[in-house]
């Protein structure tokens, strides 16, 4: 089933969006018990060319040192943090500097070559937090309550098509352009038809998960000059199946819903906040309003700051 949510503060200032998104996702916990995830934008405060790597490392003698050695061989680690996760895994987060964004994906692929190590993501303008378990467990584990930002997207996962693990938790990220993430409720039934052309452009797929396909599709469109609204509209024409998905970009969020409207999406907005979610109960975690818009079949909505 899955639950999706997105929120933007229109004043572009920092707000406790980690805490707010935690509440939004907790309200959607019943839609997906397997895993949950956040993309919290605008609060990292990194300098130009600085990036945050978010790496899953098994508790194994010497493995973390190998990860650090791999990173340091490319660029010195500036700052680091270890968050203990479950099933003998730790999440290693480190800040690095690269000459250009194009160096990020090759570095991630280098680190991924280490056994029992998976790079969950690498980002500049947002922090991704995703793990297996309930929203509250993950929120406590990573202290999402303290995360500040301008906007965020999030997900509770009811797995259908791929395995339950930390990497397959949403959001998924593309590296075609910086910092594009997607959370998704549904299935893309013409998955291979969408994936094929993207691979022929040279875009790298790490999984067979259809949400990864969506994020590469959107990033590819944005790379080609589409506005977010245009990319969302085009995706509705190009993609088959029941879906409702939310995109996060460095400047905002957007939602798209399939042409038959087979997955839910609701929206509430006031002068301060733009919020979208699978259900009204999630919107009520952000604002008190009786004015709830249903996203119509084949409709997309976006807000950029």
């Amino acid at each position, binding site marked *: 089933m899955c639950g999706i949510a997105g929120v933007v503060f229109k004043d572009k200032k920092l707000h406790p969006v980690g805490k707010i998104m935690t509440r939004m996702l907790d309200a959607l916990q019943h839609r997906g018990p397997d895993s949950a995830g956040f993309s919290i934008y605008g609060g990292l405060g990194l300098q130009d060319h600085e990036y945050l790597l978010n790496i899953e490392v098994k508790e194994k003698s010497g493995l973390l040192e190998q990860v650090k050695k791999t990173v340091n061989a490319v660029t010195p680690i500036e700052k680091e943090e270890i968050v203990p996760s479950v099933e003998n895994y730790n999440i290693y987060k480190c800040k690095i500097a690269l000459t250009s964004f194009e160096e990020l994906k090759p570095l991630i692929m280098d680190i991924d070559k280490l056994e029992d190590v998976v790079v969950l993501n690498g980002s500049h303008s947002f922090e991704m937090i995703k793990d297996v378990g309930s929203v509250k467990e993950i929120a406590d584990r990573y202290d999402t309550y303290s995360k500040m930002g301008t906007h965020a997207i999030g997900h509770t996962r009811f797995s259908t098509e791929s395995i339950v693990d930390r990497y397959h938790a949403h959001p998924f990220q593309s590296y075609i352009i910086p910092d594009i993430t997607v959370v998704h409720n549904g299935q893309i039934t013409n998955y291979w038809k969408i994936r094929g052309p993207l691979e022929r452009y040279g875009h790298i797929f790490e999984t067979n998960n259809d949400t990864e396909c969506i994020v590469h599709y959107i990033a590819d469109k944005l790379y080609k000059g589409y506005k977010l609204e245009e990319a969302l509209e085009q995706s509705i024409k190009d993609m088959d199946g029941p879906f409702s998905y939310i995109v996060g970009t460095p400047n905002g969020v957007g939602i798209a819903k399939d042409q038959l*409207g087979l997955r*839910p999406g*609701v929206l509430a907005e006031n002068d301060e906040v733009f919020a979208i979610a699978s259900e*009204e*109960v999630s919107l009520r975690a952000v604002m008190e309003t009786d004015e*709830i818009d*249903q996203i*119509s*079949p*084949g409709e997309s909505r976006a807000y950029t700051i």
Partner: protein
Amino acid sequence: MREIEIDANSMVPRDLNRAVKQAARKYDRIVIKNPNAMHYMVAGLTDDVEIVIDGSAGYFAGTMIDGAKIRITGNAGWFPADNMTDGEVMIDGAAGDGVGQGIYGGTVVVRKNAGSRTGEIMKNGTIIIGGNSGFMSGLFMMGGRIIVLGDVSDDAGESIIRGAMYVLGDIKSLGKNAKIEEIDDESKNELKELLPVYGFELEEDKYDKFKKIVPRSKRPFYGGKESEEG
């Protein structure tokens, strides 16, 4: 009148519905406080009792009720009144997709807009939408009536077999097997009697402006070929 309040805060749907069913044996009116858009509220209640959901409801509010009168003071999610056999579900706000899905009887009223597929596979009963109704309203409708005081979106009356839709606003497009016919005096009088009962007071000339959507054929047809039984 014997009345009781039930605070739904921190309850799960199963607990709430159990409490409602127990209260319905002793009380005439049950007010559910802090519903917080919970799903499945008042599912399967067969007592003839008045229920007020003081806020918004989630999915399947009042599903399979038989005789209860439910008022939702906020909005409702998908499938309010799904498969009800008798009673009333009144929604003061807006509603999601599938309002009155598959109902066999009773009345569903949404004061504001409704989502897609309003009244899909309904067999009988009445659905009134005060605002607009979305894509494929009346999908595979098999009986009863849907009244929309605003506009209806694409494919209105898709594969409708029996029953009728009355639309005061614009009809974006008709679905397969649907056609528009002139509203006759009998239908107008039916609406004039019905709508004020639920607080919709229309000017006299508005009743002439309703469009009536009915089936073209008694059997669904696929592709371009109509049923020979038409």
